[in-house]
């Protein structure tokens, strides 16, 4: 059996785990990533690939902005050829539709708030501009928010790119390797029993995605995560008619048109997750609302057939932003999961900032909102009071 001692053991080879591994390994840290399946096989490889600042929670903004810069210069991070394969398309814009007055009111208030914070990437647009940008949009659409810088990338290839870059930087990536037991050792380090033998490490980062709360629970730390099997639908190919990614405000709406013409429809609806078996089911009864939202926004799409669906497992927190934080109970343990369906875009920045925090031995202030402390049993979060 293999026995070695690392600076860091990362549990989970999704984008978050691999991005952190890549930055740490580049500074010379000895890093092992263990992944029970293949790296990127779960949320990171099967998500919608949306790269958006649009409708980001303001608390995520600093990370999201940094991430956007990094996606924009992906070649610097992972190399020219690899970045090409990630098909990063920024500047196609993302648009949030206001289909009724309540949504329009929300969009206005949101826009005001963002401006007040000095965040200018989101603009309020009126019905006229909206209809110009989105031919075929139902007349009833009243306006919306646009983030012109936004776009999308190929998630499977991006997950692969970060995995390979981490490995190239010297991180050891063990796939098909399950964590059996994890124990803090006297003196502050960790001992992990894995399919690949015992691994000792100074620190552990829990990047186990939808399984993150399970890993934490095994160490006695209870974190509030709801596991979702987010469902995507793909249609037959139609003539290209829309470049921006379109999302809903209160509607379960999210779609983009792929290069080949098929529509990729999301909307945040969960199927049935089966965490233990690492799988999930599509529940079509629930997808009716997603189809209805799509058709009411774009009536001409009613005849377009859905060809297939898929689901991806993702963890969601009660306040809609992730956990990126040292453990409240154990030294040398970080939790980085619960990305609430929008962690693909954040990944490069999460990698950079978490790695830097570890190296500095100091939590970067941009990570403050993502602390596990916010789930302490008592005083609830500020935003609760303001609903």
């Amino acid at each position: 059996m293999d026995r070695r001692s690392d600076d860091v053991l990362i549990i989970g080879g999704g984008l978050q785990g691999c991005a952190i591994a890549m930055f740490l390994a580049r500074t010379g840290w000895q890093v092992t990533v263990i992944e029970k399946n293949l790296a990127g096989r779960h949320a990171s490889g099967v998500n919608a690939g949306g790269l958006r600042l649009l409708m980001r929670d303001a608390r995520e903004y600093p990370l999201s902005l940094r991430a956007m810069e990094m996606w924009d210069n992906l070649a610097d991070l992972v190399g020219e050829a690899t970045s090409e394969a990630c098909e990063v398309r920024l500047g196609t814009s993302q648009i949030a539709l206001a289909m009724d007055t309540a949504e329009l009111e929300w969009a206005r208030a949101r826009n005001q708030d963002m401006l007040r914070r000095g965040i200018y990437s989101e603009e309020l647009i009126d019905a006229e501009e909206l209809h110009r940008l989105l031919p075929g949009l139902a007349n009833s659409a009243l306006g919306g928010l646009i983030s012109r810088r936004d776009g999308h990338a190929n998630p499977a290839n991006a997950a692969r790119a970060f995995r390979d870059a981490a490995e190239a930087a010297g991180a050891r990536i063990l796939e098909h390797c399950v964590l059996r037991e994890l124990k803090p050792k006297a003196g502050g380090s960790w001992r992990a029993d894995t399919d690949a033998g015992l691994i000792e490490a100074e620190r552990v980062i829990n990047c186990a995605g939808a399984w993150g709360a399970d890993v934490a629970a095994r160490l006695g730390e209870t974190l509030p995560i709801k596991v979702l099997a987010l469902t995507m639908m793909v249609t037959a190919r139609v003539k290209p008619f829309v470049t921006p990614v379109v999302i809903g405000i209160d509607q379960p709406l999210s779609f983009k048109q792929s290069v080949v013409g098929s529509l990729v429809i999301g909307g945040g609806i969960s199927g049935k997750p089966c965490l233990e078996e690492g799988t999930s089911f599509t529940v079509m009864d629930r997808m009716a609302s997603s189809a209805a939202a799509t058709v009411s926004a774009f009536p001409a799409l009613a005849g377009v057939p859905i060809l297939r669906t898929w689901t991806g497992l993702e963890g969601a927190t009660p306040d809609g932003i992730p956990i990126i934080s040292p453990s409240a109970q154990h030294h040398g343990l970080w939790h980085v999961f619960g990305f609430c369906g929008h962690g693909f875009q954040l990944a490069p920045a999460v990698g950079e900032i978490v790695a830097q925090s570890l190296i500095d031995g100091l939590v970067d202030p941009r990570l403050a909102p993502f602390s596990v402390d916010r789930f302490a049993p008592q005083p609830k979060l500020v935003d609760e009071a303001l609903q």
Partner: protein
Amino acid sequence: MNIPTKPMLSGERQDALAVDADVIVIGAGPAGMSAAIELASAGCQVIVLDLQPTPGGQIFRALQSNLEARPSTDSLLAALGSAYNAGRTLIQQFRATAGIDYRPETTVWDLRADGTVGWLKGEMAGYLRARHVVVANGAMERPTPFPGWTLPGVMTAGAVQTLIKAGRLQPEGQIVLAGTGPLIFLLADQLRRLGVRPALIARTDRFRDKIFALPHIRPAGIPALLKGLGWLARLRLAGIPMRSRVTELKAQGRDRLETVSLTVAGRGMELSCDLLVVHDGIIPAIELAHCAGLALEWRESDASWRPKTSQDGKAQMAAGPALTSGPCRIRISGDARQIGGADAAVAHGRHAAKAILAELGRASVRPPVGAADQTATDVQRTMAARPFIDAAFPLGLAAQLPDDTTIVCRCEEITAGSLRTSIHGGATDMNLIRGVTRCGMGPCQGRSCAVTLARLLGEAATRTPASPAPFRARPPLRPLPLGALAKLSGLDPELAEVVSLEDKPEAALGGDTNG
């Protein structure tokens, strides 16, 4: 851990949920029709869903409309012969039986083990529920990926039969029939009667196979064999050129088929060709069973999957997690269960119906204890010719796995070569390969490439391959228009309760984080 979904359908809850019928039958071919007749005659409410506009399935396709169109179809009916006209009584009985709610032109796109069936008709879609479901969706032709198989001008025997029966069309020009299995001879004989003379029947089977198959002959199978010999004899009498031991079939042409080349007993030949009709036997259509989470078995000898069922068709759940809980309410009948042809399908449909009636407590007269189970005996008798046919017509066109340049997935145009590359690169199961290569992602949902990909995986396996698992089958199994889904009826109130991501940020996040 806080998993949002409530426990899914329990056995009791499903009964509490209103059912739309006692039994839903999927497919109005011989198996589906005979099951429905038996069930409805015993007083059950039966809903029959079928893709086609009239009942009959593959074999009796459009028979009703062709009968109604007489005398203009007299010659067509005569040409199609007794194999086709035999469906007449069954169809008449099916239409005449009260209690059968027959819904033609209806596509099934979802099936759940608890008896829930997703349907689509025109622009309407919904779910229906029943205490029992009989899956009788038949078989499909074995995909035959050989060089040029996707060229226009190459068709399967089944597709040609559809043109003849439903389109009342007649193929023209220089026609080559290639492959094996009874259907190719039946079709050749039907073409002959229509006055169409194929230029060549290129058989992949060898005389040796027949010799080896002889020990499999059962007395009860002899009538079926005689039928087959009859077709052959008539073809020979008509002087239609026929070659056996054909290998290395290739279809060539720029935009469409122009020539066919093949090797007969080691000698190459090439002939010009307008229509190449291929057939390599049929295999059970498993997509509904697979979608419902039912157990399948891979049969290497037949290079295909079939559902695991008891003799009366009762299916069992596959191991692993399931969408619904409670008892499995599905039976599989006819060719969808086990290839056996029309007579066997009729017998099995009846047998499955009897078993359902017994479970519903509606068996008209209980057979005296110890008495022979008539429907079971009929199933055995009608399947008697099968072992001989299977041995006499082994895999032909598909026997050799395709070379690297041949397309395997025709929807996405993925070659065997790129699949092999991805397999050697470490992709160990069909879903991974689909993710990497897009093989099986097209409109056919992998129906025409799944068995070939499973075999490519087997070819690369170092250890003896375990039973390969087909592509994950998620609904919708067939294209489902967004508009129809938007207005989906028959939702399961509990399942339909939407669990969604709630990540909409506050419009204004108070507390002024910073300016």
